[in-house]
């Protein structure tokens, strides 16, 4: 089941607290933002969770499939051991 990066919009702080208390959503608390019309926070959610939150009155923006997007990051991981030549001097 795909996992999506989502932005969840709620009417007030109580609604945002309920994301954790009642809906057990994994929110990224550092992204909690006060907007003109309420609050927004980033989170991870699958299709089922998104539907459940929408049914509970939240507005949910669905962004990237995090697994797909994250695979691109693997090309930024070093291969082998770039320090081994220097390590020979230590051992």
């Amino acid at each position, binding site marked *: 089941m795909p996992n999506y990066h989502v932005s969840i919009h709620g009417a007030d702080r109580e609604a945002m607290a309920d994301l954790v208390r009642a809906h057990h959503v994994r929110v990224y608390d550092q992204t909690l933002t006060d907007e003109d019309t309420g609050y927004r926070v980033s989170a*991870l959610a699958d299709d089922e969770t998104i539907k459940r939150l929408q049914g509970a009155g939240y507005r949910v923006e669905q962004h990237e499939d995090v697994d797909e997007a994250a695979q691109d990051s693997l090309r930024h991981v070093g291969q082998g051991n770039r320090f081994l030549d220097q390590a020979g001097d230590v051992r």
Partner: protein
Amino acid sequence: MTYLNVDEVETAIALATGPANASFTELITLPHQTWEGRTCHAIRVHQDAAARSGVYLLGGVHAREWGSPDILVNFVQLLTDAYRSGTGITQGGAEVSAEQVRAIVDTLDVVVFPQANPDGRHYSMTVDPMWRKNRRPADAGDPGCLSGGGNGPGVDINRNYNFLWDFPTTFSTSAPVATSADPCSEIYYGPGAVSEPETRNVVWLLDRYPSVGYFIDVHSFGEAILFNWGDDDGQVTDPSMNFSNPVYDGKRGIPDGTPGGDPDKYREYIPADDRHTLVTLGTMMRDAIQAAHGRPYTLKQAVGLYPTSGTSDDYAYSRSFLDSSKDTVLGYTIEWGPQQSSISKSFHPDYPDMVPIIEEVTAGLLAFCLAAVRRTLDATLADAGTNW
């Protein structure tokens, strides 16, 4: 350039303690092997056997936050190279002079544990880039977990410390605590406090180096510097209203900003002097970060709408409240890097975007060490005055 893999972090730390640096470094082998059988190492940088004060820098706790070990390796390499060669350090627009480098290494125990969760890092860098926890296998009777997106068994090390660990008992049932008892959750607190070898290694270093008076856990993301406490608002007037007092069990974790306020008015005690010092030193760190590449980080108390339990910075600070023989360890968490449009890129930016972050956080850590040097020397002078 690319992120350091697990083997490279270990080799880099071993190299920093090589013959050329042997007179002022110590390679520390941590006693607890990880679930996958890895042995971790830390480094202590100091000119003599033991210092009067110390700074403990921790990284690599959350597997997907790839840049944290790279930051701490950069910090160690620059500090040891500069001390050996008698030079200063420049990171973007932030500079530390050769004299200041010497003051840091001559005055402080600088203890750096850059890769606390190598199993998780390896898994994140080879299988599931969003993996956060350690690699503790599922226990008998645990539910089957989904996979991908960071889902699966394992323990969030930064919810496993012995600070209000038993959150169902110690927090209000109304508190939106960012901790979970679900073994599949990426913020699972573990089967017991300090149950994980990775957690025990972090604690072991605190026990081993009692000179440490400052603790900084390096995480991502959010461009923020957080300080004690993370469980609730702070207060400076009532020492009895504190984390160890069972009278307040069931009343914690509702900050004043919660709608309707906090019905129990619980606030975590923090001595005014400690709070002042946390803000003063944190400000110096924040200013140095901004001097490097112009990016403003926010300095604030850790607690927000979603309070935390079992975290490293609050555990480190809590120790002296429970055991008066221990010195105070002020605790910080750095959340490096900005939020990006992609959540995975927020945790592991493309490496060219990571380079200035490495430099700015290194600058902040060096400035913090310098501030700790000044406090230590001021205290030394004050003590000398007392003896006259």
